[in-house]
């Protein structure tokens, strides 16, 4: 037992060390710091999807909606209300999270395939709104004219805008806070109940657990995390366009979670690293990158449904 615990701590330390040192080792492999920030942001999104999918067994295929709302929320805040990066994050998180919580009350009335279908369809509402309401959202061209602001810490000011490394660490701190909170929730009695629902919904119901309420809360929490990631994404790009709301992005998040290993906590991070780096590379070498991503998805579904970490775990258990 102690051995298991130390090895787990070692893995954790290795993950964080690699993330902290990323700006130094990534260039050796042809990476660049902005790509690292992108990986972290999308990984946070994938982990939020997995929070619901992997630990409650509820598949939302429309999570890009909350991600995109977070992005637009941050953009609106920075453009019109307050020139502050943290306030932008807060605004985005609240916009996406609250919208998700409200709609979630409606969505949790359905389950399984039906739930997936309803989440896809509802997710698209926001895509059409962003697309049509161009006087506010900029329409198809996207929301422009805002940028992340320097971070004032009282004793010093950090230039997030021009210093890519500084922004990477800003994202990393946000990522660590969100992931830490996620881990805390999953280890709490509430998180254990989520897993109980995943394992056997009927038994959980017989134990007197209000299943719908738990799924609703889990869904809402996942929306807040997702919107936080979206807000970071807007500050990363200084830009938000309707594609961040499209169900194709929801699918990307789900595939990141599945590719990494959806019943594991860190799997989606691994999945996001592989997916984002591969997409970045493929789209720079071939115009047919969509086919390659499509084939990758098909192969994962057919041959590696447990994902990379799931496979490793299976091997080490055998």
């Amino acid at each position: 037992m102690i051995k298991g615990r130390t090895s787990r701590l070692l893995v954790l330390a290795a993950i964080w060390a690699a993330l902290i040192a990323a700006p130094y080792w990534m260039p050796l492999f042809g990476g660049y710091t902005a790509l690292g920030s992108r990986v972290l942001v999308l990984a946070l999104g994938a982990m939020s999807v997995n929070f619901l999918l992997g630990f409650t067994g509820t598949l939302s295929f429309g999570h890009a909606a909350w991600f995109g709302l977070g992005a637009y929320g941050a953009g609106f805040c920075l453009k019109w209300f307050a020139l502050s990066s943290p306030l932008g994050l807060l605004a985005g998180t609240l916009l996406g999270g609250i919208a998700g919580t409200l709609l979630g009350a409606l969505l949790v009335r359905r389950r399984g395939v039906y739930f997936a279908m309803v989440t896809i369809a509802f997710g698209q509402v926001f895509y059409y709104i962003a697309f049509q309401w161009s006087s506010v959202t900029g329409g198809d061209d996207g929301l422009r004219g805002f940028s992340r602001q320097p971070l004032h810490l009282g004793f010093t000011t950090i230039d997030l805008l021009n210093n890519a490394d500084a922004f990477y660490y800003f994202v990393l701190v946000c990522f660590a806070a969100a992931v830490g909170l996620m881990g805390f929730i999953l280890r709490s009695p509430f998180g254990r109940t989520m897993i109980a629902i995943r394992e056997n919904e009927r038994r959980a119901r017989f134990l007197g657990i209000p299943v719908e309420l738990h799924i609703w809360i889990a869904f809402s929490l996942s929306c807040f995390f997702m919107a936080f990631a979206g807000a970071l994404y807007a500050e990363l790009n200084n830009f938000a366009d309707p594609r961040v709301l499209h169900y194709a992005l929801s699918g990307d998040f789900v595939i990141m979670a599945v590719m990494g290993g959806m019943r594991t906590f860190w799997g989606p991070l691994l999945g996001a690293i592989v997916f984002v780096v591969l997409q970045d590379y493929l789209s720079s070498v071939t115009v047919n990158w969509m086919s390659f991503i499509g084939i990758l998805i098909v192969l994962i579904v057919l041959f590696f449904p447990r994902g990379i970490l799931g496979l490793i775990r299976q091997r080490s258990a055998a």
Partner: protein
Amino acid sequence: MSQLILFNITNGLIVGAFYALMAIGLSLILNLSGVINFAHGGFLVIGGYLSYTLTPYLGFWGALIVAPFLTAIIGWLVERLLIRRVYGRDPLYSLLLTFGLAFIIEDGTRQIWGAQGLPVSVPAALSKPLRYEFFFITGYRLFMVAMVAVLIVLLFVLLRYTRSGIRVRAGTLDLETVSALGINVRALRSLNFSVGIFLAGFAGVLAAGQLGLDPNMGDGLLMPSFIAIIVGGVGSLTGTLLGGLLIGVAAGVTAVFFPSASDAIMYVMMAIVLLVRPRGLLGEEGMLS
């Protein structure tokens, strides 16, 4: 004003009939196999482009018949090689699989036929307005609705009176029992999938005549089909038909008063249905949920 409303209702019915054709294909596959076919829009595009390629050789009418059959054959192959492997697994996997397929199909069409949209001409006899006062009712639109009606009636007749049709309906309710009675469920699902894809291909040919061709055209038509299924109720093809027509007409009527909200109205309808009657208008309780 009344002419405008009439125009938009007619328009809505035409669009709705079209959504219904797409949605019924999706619904067939979903009911029997539990697969949400994300690639349905992709198959629609394949149907449209195949008819474009075939028209010079077979003429409009020949392509109208042959292209959907070719699409159905491609669908059959895809089912045999890929979709079949995820039956019985978590719905997550069939969703992802067809999601990946949709990527491949979209990129493939772009590779073969080019990223630029292509114009499609329909026979002159069909493109003229019928009467001057009702300029909007062109022959082609009436033809579309007629074709959709014929196909849907044909499908319902087949489901009602043929042996395979009855098996498909029985399988929708209880696949295990159907299998236990010695019916080859695998073959049944293949056939059913191909029929669904046939409808998508046909919808593609019809859409091409009205909208022209574009590799992304399936994308905008997929969501309304989902909504038609949810509004109508999962498990009921009649419900899906009703759902498609309803959202089409609603979008048409809304376009008179709030043009910019005509896309959003179907989502509002879906929200109301989920709130008041979560199983959908004609849906069965407990179906796939």
